[in-house]
């Protein structure tokens, strides 16, 4: 068995597989990619090949899924992922100020990672929290009704 995936990822995939019929192993591919990303912060080519092997798929079938969804990170990124929504509601409520404040504070453009590897700044499409616009997603949590002050407070509380 391959060494690329950790035991805990492999166990998680095994548990996931129980949710689907035996001939539908392909169904677990999204979850498997997520497990890898949660553990490693990104998904390497080797990890995708390993998932293909575990699920009995051709590697290309895993690549297809991984490249389709923008939330799978196929390049190593920062420890914390800051995803700022710039769709209509957030844009009207000032997402461009949020972006420029973060760019100034972190010294990077969107799509980049800080030199110390702590933060990646991304522009994303609607995350379905228009009621709290402007908003961003920091790792797995939503933060709404952002202002420069709340942004500073948010980032200062992180390692």
């Amino acid at each position: 068995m391959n060494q690329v995936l950790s035991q805990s990822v492999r166990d998680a995939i095994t548990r996931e597989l129980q949710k689907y019929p035996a001939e539908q192993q392909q169904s677990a591919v999204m979850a498997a990619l997520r497990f890898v990303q949660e553990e490693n912060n990104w998904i390497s080519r080797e990890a995708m090949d390993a998932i293909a092997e575990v699920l009995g798929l051709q590697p290309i079938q895993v690549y297809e899924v991984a490249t389709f969804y923008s939330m799978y990170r196929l390049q190593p990124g920062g420890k914390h992922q800051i995803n700022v929504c710039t769709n209509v509601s957030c844009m009207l409520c000032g997402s461009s100020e949020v972006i420029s404040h973060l760019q100034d504070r972190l010294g990077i453009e969107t799509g980049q990672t800080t030199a110390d590897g702590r933060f990646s700044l991304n522009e994303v499409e609607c995350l379905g929290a228009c009621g709290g616009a402007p908003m961003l997603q920091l790792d797995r949590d939503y933060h709404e009704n952002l202002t420069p002050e709340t942004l500073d407070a948010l980032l200062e509380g992180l390692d």
Partner: protein
Amino acid sequence: MLNIEIDGRQLQAEEGEMLIEVADRAGIYIPRFCYHKHLSVAANCRMCLVEVEKAPKPLPACATPVTDGMKVFSRSELAMDAQKGTMEFLLINHPLDCPICDQGGECELQDLAVGYGGDRSRYTEEKRVVRDPDLGPLVATEMTRCIHCTRCVRFGQEISGIREMGATGRGEHTTIGTYVQHAIGSELSGNIIDLCPVGALTSKPFKFAARSWEMADVASVAPHDCAGSSIRIQTLRGKVERVLPLENNDINETWLSDRDRFSYTAVNSGERLTVPRIRKKGEWQETDWATALQSVADGLLQNVAKQGADKLAGIISPTSTLEEFYLFQKLLRGLGSNNIDHRLKLADSRDDGRWASAPALGMPIKELESLDFVLLIGCNLRKEQPILNHRLRKAVLAGADVAVINPYDYEFNYPLSVRAVSSPSGMLQSVANIIRLLSDKLGHDVPEDVIPWMDPTRINQQHRALADRFADRNSKSALILGQLAWLHEEGAILRSMAKTLADMAGVSLGFLPEANGVAAWQAGCTPFSEQDKGLSVADMDAAEIKTWLLFGVEPELDAAHGGQLLAALNDADIVVAITAFASAGESYADVQLPAAMFAENAGTFVNCEGAAQTLSAATTPPGDAREGWKILRALAGYLDLPGFDFDTVSAIAAAVDAAGAPSPGYGMGSLSGYAKTEHAGGENLERIRDSLIYRGDAILRRCEPLQRTTDNPPPAARINPQQASRLGLEQDAKVKLMVDETSVETPVVLDQRVPEGCVFLPIGYLETAALPGSASVRLVRS
């Protein structure tokens, strides 16, 4: 039956059919890109939108099942509007590079753009550009032209069985490719060129060579395997530029193997022989036909008079035509020799007396699809016979199970129910053990002659599973012996046991002949004759043959016992090579007569199901080269042999008694008298012989694009890693392989698929050709 109406025409349809199928049958053309009758429905191009009465919006004809009373309008305003809209979107990102695109003139997008496209574009923004993946030496890519129909992706999934292409990315960022750079390895990969409706995937060897409309088109037959796929050979000003499949639902459907598609590249090879040549004092000298034929005739007659006709032998390539086979054997028999053979892969001729007629599949190729169970013995069907393998794959997808007994763990493109991999001698034991288990099950006596090969202590789960499967009388089963069975050093024993097993189980026994082998049998190109049996190719080396007539062969590379034949040829008085290539036999021949090859000669090809088809000449042979049958006829004239007054190939064909379809006529015989061979072990490894897909005949070995594929690895002795560590060998270590006094050097490749105690060393490589064919070889570090 349902009644529907399309464009006012009343049509009948089956329940479950899609609209487009009914329309196609009725000859009503609905435009499409992603739909293909042999692939699953994707409905992603939206080009086939049609108006259906009572439906609120246009529906895709490829994915709309018919219902009774349905009224369809394929050219109504709504339908045309939808189709034009789709076309406009498809053309947004499509480059306007038709003048430099190989697909130009046979492009579905180009054709439909004429019918449905606007005369100017409303799109002024930037077009998408896509980086091209390198798919290897056969398929050229220009992915900016891709319209994402996914036919190539579905082909990989559904037909070739290895999904190598995929659609990565999303929306506008979607690209079709392999994602990770690698050459595609399917033996059917060329078909994605035909499937691609645009110029995204085109033929690399054909790149920028000709336009589809300026080429002449001739229907013919591909000669490299026993399927005999129907092909179209296309020429421009006499030069063969391309080969395409010709739809034939009994044989290759719309598909073609890469071997058959690209083998034409050898026709234009720089190695072609264009004038007769005679070797004088070691030097090749070009000459004219009269001088060459006179010298051949004098040499043959002198030697036969001096040494007797039994020192004369002839070997002909199994890719030759029925007519060439007939004249070849007639010429040799006219000189008094029965030492005639085409069975180059035959290693063991001890059962020669048992053939009642040509070895053949024993059923129509189409019928492979309807089998429930197939046991392949010594057969890498996927690479040996890609078209037959595709039929069997369909059977597997429909629920059949396929099992193998092989000396190497070949990769199949479908799951195998039993994968019994053992040394060549272990294969005999496996079959014997299955016979034992089956006779117990059916309450028969264990056949006594098979007992020496049985080893009840080594009966395993696989043997039990196979015996169980054969005991099931309700399933339609077959047992098929492939190329590795011909190449098996104790093939006679294997065939005899297979016959015993097939008879006991009451299943069909099939053999896969070499290329046009069935025609060779029909034309008498075998050592058998009514009075006397001559020598098989496997026995010719030991008989001190001094005079050889070779037709389209390189025995040292083509034959199971190539090493022995090479020694015999080097030792001969006269070797006459009728060949298309100057390099064939260059080192040992005394006279070379330039012959036409596939695409240049006409004749008859009989495939493994016994279907006779006509090979047509698409062009003329280069220089002074002549069709094989004309050379043989002329030579017979110089030899004063009667009965060669044929003016056409059809006159020769008429002379061949090809009565009825050949059935596998392998007769029952006893194994008593056959000795069981013991294998020494240690440094002595059993040799596994194979003939790889692109090294099987003189033509293929000169196809430059095929030689560069991943299916053509450099020569190597493959051994199991455990075996290697016991012998103290590592990857790429140079080793000496020895049989008696002869040795060759080659690197070692560690390969888990080789059973222990064996070395996998295919024939067909010049570097190792000198090694005599034998059951075992000694392997030492050099």
